[in-house]
């Protein structure tokens, strides 16, 4: 053996001793090698040394310290894991930012594709311009995803791979069970992959009758779902028939996704499936309309192939989408108040999310909404696998945005390839229940406030005035039963001890102005001491019966249409206007400076001349004033928004948006705004989308506002819940704990952080802050085939004032178009001015991958950097 060993060593030494190379050639080789391996990093280092270059080096430099912190806090394993992940991320970023790669890759790929028909790791080139996504092909050609060996391999992490939950059935069963606990049904919609219907780009040997192609385990997967009584709708066969019968392409040639026709067809099929098998509550059909629109888009697979922009091998795709419009002609959009929720991935977002390049308002959810003739809510995430959208739903729940409220059916769409490749983690949906601070409220629950709410309700059959205590009490009827009379327009006195209301001989579904007999009445809040203030034909359009000037004086419209000031104790009165009006009489504010008719004009009022100078009329209705006379507010159009006008500066602001996402639950169709005397609580009514003031299910809500600015300080909370209509609320506040309110319901935007105790808890914010740390930037492979991702970073406010020192987390664009953004290379300590909006409810960001690898800190609010847009 020794001789053999020596022979090997000797041979090697001998060989190398005999290298015949002239010194000049040796130098050439060394020089050439040095140039090859030195020029590229030198250029990259020069690039990365510039500020905001998106360099990954700062991440690497910070990694050991971060790992050490974790080691000290949670142990060596966690520290090692963090360091390991940082190293992997750094290397991935280095490769993605490779200068040589950026220069050479497109040209090299074009050569390979043009002359050798080569795709790349993720894109397979087919005949006649078809491109395929490799993981989708693997799903079809690979083994059954439920085979034991496949499941076992999927569950064990290979080198460089994360372990995953490969079996989709437990996750779906768990999801269905959790939805069922809330009375919500689930229908599963695995979306076929391109080659299942269009194999012709890869093989001529597959007969049309063999379509759709499917993974060997699909049948057993469906059988297991059937055993669990989870309905599944598989559009494959319907789409294959459409392809066969009408020769329509069902997929885009250069994109992973289905064509608009296939989307519509699948949506129609699903609507039929739902109608036939799942009972949705009856509701009045919504008259959606559709209009054709031509779109020129560039396929995601073409982008993934990475050819140069000047390439001519593949052309952009010209398609025609059917955009869906609502009854008022507005483009379709997801309706959080709908009772159907579509959870999906990019197959749902395509034709809906404009950034995917193929138009808007024409995606799967829109077409399903059109086919069902009812509003549909949608939440779809493009990247991150099949658990991403459930995670996003959970995040929303945890943030207090209950996207499941009011839902009866969840449609769970995902690409069928995820059955084989996806991570089917169980995702709990009980975040609200577990987080005591954000558990689902019941309307009768106590608010962190003392005071009273009054409103008019039809719950007893007739319109009566009802009340409840803010600190918790069941609703009780306040005004007496009087056959043939309807009560309305309750307004609380400034001290909250009594109220005025109208009692009129009127039908239950009209708002007469002067036409009917009735009385303006005064009543104590305990129900006693009722008496009539005026009688005849009192004015009562909407809630404009009266306005308290102070605890004694009431401003109201007399029977002759003139506005009157009435002392409720003495009965003395005086006229505030001289000119009688038969329509839209003037209601004058408590400071006697402005007046409104039924229209929001907020005209100036001259008390000396008892005359109103009619001002510009804003669109909308339900105008009223803050008690201090500084603001007016009104509903701009059906369902909101609720606008605010500074009566001195005439600046317009928004109190609550139309379908404002800060409103928990599905009732976001706004009406009947009213402000407490001290300006600390806004009361309003909201339905889940129906406008009818007399028959719709409006409930009463209240929300804390900053009395100085009338901006929201916390999320609205619902105070009544009854199938009848609860409308025209008015509220009186004795005490109010805004901090507790915020804890019980997460914050909503507010405009002026400096004036609040917890400025970082709400937005929009415009702050100076110091950058602390950022989450790991996902690699392009992780978000493939997409190229945009948000990363969560932590900042610390450095503004002077109460906000200073507060930490907050902000979602920034980490990747856009595959390029790392400047934030990813921002070193700790950098100061910047940020314009922030709360992330929750920002639907335009719903579809993007969100990387949050920072240590959990639930107490920190999450914003996004609106200044980047």
């Amino acid at each position: 053996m020794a001789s053999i060993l020596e022979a090997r060593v000797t041979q090697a030494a001998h060989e190398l001793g005999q290298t015949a190379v002239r010194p000049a050639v040796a130098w050439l080789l060394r020089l050439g090698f040095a140039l090859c391996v030195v020029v590229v990093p030198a250029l990259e280092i020069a690039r990365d040394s510039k500020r905001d270059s998106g360099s990954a080096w700062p991440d690497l430099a910070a990694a050991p310290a971060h790992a050490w912190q974790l080691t000290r806090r949670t142990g060596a394993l966690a520290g090692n894991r963090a360091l390991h992940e940082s190293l992997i991320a750094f290397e991935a970023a280095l490769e993605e930012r490779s200068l040589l790669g950026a220069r050479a890759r497109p040209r090299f790929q074009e050569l390979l594709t043009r002359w050798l028909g080569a795709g790349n790791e993720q894109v397979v080139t087919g005949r006649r311009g078809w491109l395929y996504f490799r993981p989708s092909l693997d799903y079809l050609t690979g083994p059954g995803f439920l085979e034991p060996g496949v499941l076992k391999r999927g569950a064990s992490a290979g080198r460089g791979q994360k372990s995953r939950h490969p079996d989709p059935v437990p996750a779906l069963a768990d999801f269905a069970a959790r939805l069922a606990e809330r009375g919500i049904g689930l229908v599963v919609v695995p979306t076929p992959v391109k080659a299942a219907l269009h194999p012709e780009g890869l093989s001529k040997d597959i007969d049309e009758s063999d379509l759709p192609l499917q993974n060997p385990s699909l049948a057993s997967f469906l059988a297991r779902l059937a055993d669990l009584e989870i309905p599944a709708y598989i559009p494959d066969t319907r789409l294959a028939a459409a392809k066969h019968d009408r020769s329509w392409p069902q997929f885009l040639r250069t994109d992973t996704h289905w064509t608009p026709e296939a989307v519509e067809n699948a949506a129609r099929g699903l609507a039929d499936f739902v109608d036939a098998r799942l009972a949705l509550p009856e509701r009045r059909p919504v008259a959606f309309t559709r209009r054709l629109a031509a779109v020129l888009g560039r396929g995601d697979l073409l982008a993934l192939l990475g050819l140069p922009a000047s390439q001519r091998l593949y052309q952009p795709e010209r398609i025609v989408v059917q955009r869906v419009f609502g009854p008022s002609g507005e483009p379709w959009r997801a309706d959080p108040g709908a009772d159907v929720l579509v959870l999906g991935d990019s197959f749902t977002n395509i034709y809906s999310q404009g950034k995917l390049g193929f138009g808007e308002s024409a995606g799967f959810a829109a077409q399903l909404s059109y086919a069902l003739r009812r509003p549909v809510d949608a939440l779809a995430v493009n990247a991150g696998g099949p658990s991403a959208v459930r995670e996003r739903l959970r995040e929303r729940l945890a943030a207090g945005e209950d996207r499941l409220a009011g839902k009866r059916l969840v449609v769970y769409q995902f690409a069928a390839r995820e059955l084989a490749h996806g991570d089917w983690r169980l995702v709990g949906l009980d975040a609200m229940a577990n987080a005591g601070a954000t558990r689902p409220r019941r309307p009768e629950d106590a608010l962190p406030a003392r005071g009273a709410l009054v409103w008019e309700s039809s719950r007893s059959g007739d319109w009566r005035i009802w009340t409840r205590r803010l600190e918790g009490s069941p609703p009780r009827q306040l005004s007496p039963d009087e056959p043939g009379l309807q009560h309305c327009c309750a307004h609380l006195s400034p001290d909250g001890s009594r109220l005025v209301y109208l009692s009129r001989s009127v039908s239950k579904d009209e708002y007469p102005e002067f036409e009917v007999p009735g009385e303006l009445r005064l009543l104590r809040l305990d129900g006693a001491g009722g008496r009539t203030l005026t009688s005849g034909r009192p004015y009562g359009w909407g809630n404009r019966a009266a306005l308290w000037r102070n605890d004694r004086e009431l401003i109201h419209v007399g029977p002759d249409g003139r506005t009157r000031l009435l002392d409720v104790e003495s009965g003395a009165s005086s006229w505030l206007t001289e000119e009688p009006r038969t329509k839209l009489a003037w209601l004058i504010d408590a400071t006697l400076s402005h007046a409104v008719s039924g229209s929001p004009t907020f005209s100036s009022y001259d008390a000396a001349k008892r005359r109103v100078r009619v001002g510009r009329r804003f669109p909308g209705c339900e105008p009223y004033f803050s008690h201090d006379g500084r603001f007016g507010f009104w509903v701009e159009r059906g369902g909101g928004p609720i606008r605010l006008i500074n009566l001195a500066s005439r600046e317009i602001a928004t109190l609550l948006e139309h379908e404002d996402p800060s409103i928990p639950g599905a009732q976001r169709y706004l009406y009947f705004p009213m402000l407490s005397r001290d300006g600390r609580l806004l009361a309003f009514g909201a339905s889940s989308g129906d406008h009818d003031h007399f028959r719709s299910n409006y409930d009463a809500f209240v929300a804390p506002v900053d009395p100085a600015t009338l901006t929201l300080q916390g999320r609205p909370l619902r105070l009544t819940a009854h199938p009848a209509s609860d409308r025209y609320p008015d509220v009186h506040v004795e005490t109010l704990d805004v901090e507790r309110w915020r804890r019980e319901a997460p914050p909503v935007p507010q405009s002026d952080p400096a004036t609040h105790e917890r400025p970082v808890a709400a937005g929009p914010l415009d702050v100076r802050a110091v950058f602390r740390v950022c989450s790991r930037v996902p690699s392009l492979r992780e978000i493939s085939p997409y190229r945009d991702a948000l990363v969560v970073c932590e900042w610390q406010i450095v503004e002077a004032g109460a906000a200073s020192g507060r930490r907050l987390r902000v979602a920034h664009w980490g990747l856009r178009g595959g390029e790392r953004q400047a934030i990813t290379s921002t070193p700790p300590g950098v100061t910047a001015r940020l314009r922030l909006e709360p992330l929750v409810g920002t639907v335009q960001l719903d579809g993007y991958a969100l990387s949050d690898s920072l240590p959990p800190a639930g107490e920190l609010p999450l914003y996004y950097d609106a200044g980047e847009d």
Partner: protein
Amino acid sequence: MVFSSHLFVYYFLPAALAVYYALPPRARQLWLSLASYAFYGWANPAFMALMLFSTAIDFGCGRKLGATLPAAHGGRRFWVGVSVVSNLSLLGFFKYFNFAVDSYSALLGALGLSALHPDAVLRIALPLGISFYTFQSMSYSLDIYRGRSRPLESFLDFACYVSLFPQLVAGPIIRYSEIADQLRERSHTPEKFARGVAFFSLGLAKKVLLANPCGFVADAAFDAAGLRTLDAWTGVLAYAFQIYFDFSGYSDMAIGLGLMFGFVFPKNFDSPYRAESITDFWRRWHISLSSWLRDYLYLPLGGSRLGVWRTYLNLGIVMLLGGLWHGAAWNFVVWGGWHGAWLALERARGKRSPYGRLPRPARVALTFAGVLVGWVFFRAPDLPAAGRYLAAMGGLGEAPAAAALVGGLLYTPYALLSLSVAASVTWLAPQTWDWTRRLTLPRAGLVLGCLALALVAMASQGYNPFIYFIF
């Protein structure tokens, strides 16, 4: 970090070389050790501690062995035993624990007893390159025990030997006795460096330009549930080229990097697919492993000195364990058994193949076919999948309609060109070792051209696995 990565080629390697040559000779060993630990720790920082532990054990055992008189057999056996047991324990625990648990669980299940739930037991992560460095480290104490080497005085020298990054994670397995003198003293010449550049460049080209495209084809075939016969053969052919160019490319790069740092590593591949028999194949394939198994396992078991049947038994044991060394799964055992059976058969025929009388091209072709069958076990994810694949190669498997899609992946012009070039290099081109013996100007140009093209291709590829990294 793999050699064919942006980080290694453009940052790690230039920095390692620049600092190495900037330092005085005394400090170079330290730098090389630090760089090697950084290289290794990049895969998982915690594994550095494991390697350091293994290094310390063997260095200590070596010192004890050196200090114990040759006549004191008991003491020497004890210390070599400590070294062998500790290395095999590390290897056994980290590489075979999961396999043992899974096999035990499967056995219980087969017997109708309740199997262990995979989540209920510890799952062990396999440290990178542990199969290689434990064998290297063991060879140190074994060589001292046998009196073939003297123990090193410097822990740093020994740490440098064990961790030497050019060959740390995928070989070749360098025995201590092969490199002991170089650890103490080695030369650095322009010729050596130039040849190192040539080895590295050609190895990188093998890896990036041939192994990766072939691997893409092989994956498409081996990941498929059903295959047509031709597709199955194309797939395994592609895999044969992938594993050869992947591993021999890596070995060339390792040898080249070694030369750049002044080390001379012996040859690891000798055109194995030109072998005329399986016996010949194992003289040519992964020579450093086969010779290690021969010298440290086969010969100590008695080799061929204890009779015919014992020889067969020893061959079987060596090949089965060799298979298991490659991977902790039964299909690797079967792969080893397949080769062991062939070796035994040829041993019975005087180290000649059953087809030894056929013309040479036929002998090479039949040997290659036998190797291909073995590669099916090597590549398939498990034994049932290997069985299905072999059935497809034999025209016995069922191919679902979707199997026709696989053809669209296998027979692209790019795939066919890659396979053709790979075949030409395999059977027609000179070996790197021979070709670089004389580096003329045109050859230097070709070397640098290969390097440039490989770097461009490397920057363009997302698919870049290294097969032997998992062993």
